[in-house]
């Protein structure tokens, strides 16, 4: 790549990413998927079940690539150390998964509803003039 046309490339890339989403994120996500696909079958099944739960419940917006990378780190390490799946997840898989996902930005609708509740209670408690509905 040439040294000088750095700026035009960035602009082009900016336009492109408006349409496609971040290319870097896509690359990171694909890398995550590859790492998961290379796990031993039981670990792969568990990791995929976990991703499904996270995304379908809207616990996360799925845009935080760090989350996927942390997840892949954990499963790769566990597979190599031969940590039994049950030891990894504990008696209640939901508890672990929720503790895990709480570390990353929440999904959009979850955030919206949290803010809605917080401001509704604020108004109901008389701490804010009525009529304002901040949902962001």
């Amino acid at each position, binding site marked *: 790549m040439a040294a000088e046309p750095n700026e035009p490339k960035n602009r082009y890339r900016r336009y492109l990413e408006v349409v496609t989403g971040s290319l870097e994120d896509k690359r990171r996500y694909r890398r995550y998927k590859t790492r998961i696909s290379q796990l031993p079958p039981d670990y792969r099944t568990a990791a995929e079940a976990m991703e499904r739960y996270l995304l379908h419940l809207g616990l996360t917006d799925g845009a935080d690539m760090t989350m996927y990378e*942390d997840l892949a780190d954990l499963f790769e*390490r566990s597979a190599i150390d031969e940590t039994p799946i049950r030891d990894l997840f504990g008696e209640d898989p939901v*508890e672990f998964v929720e*503790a*895990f996902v709480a570390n990353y930005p929440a999904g959009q609708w979850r955030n919206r509803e949290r803010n809605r509740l917080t401001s509704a209670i604020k108004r109901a408690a008389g701490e804010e003039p009525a009529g304002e509905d901040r949902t962001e």
Partner: protein
Amino acid sequence: MGKLVTEMLKGTLEGIVLAILSGRPAYGYEITAWLRDQGFSDIAEGTIYALLVRIEQRGLVDVEKVPSEKGPPRKVYSLNAQGREYLEEFWTTWSFLAGRLEQLREGGK
């Protein structure tokens, strides 16, 4: 370990892990192993991992990646100044709580 202890541990696990790390740096697996040795056998390895991610994000620990014979490098966690401060606060809160609970128990007799 019963259900009760698991519930009670939830709020204190962070302090416990920081206290372990105040002794010496450790990686996730060592921490879980130590907890199991001490009889906390119900703690999921994943839960500890999630906790370590959290205290790292909050800047309570320093992380060093140490190459491992097999697989990805291990993350070794050590308590930093901010973590020590937080741990102090944890112990203060703990003493308060334990004191009040003890009072309740005495009072109930």
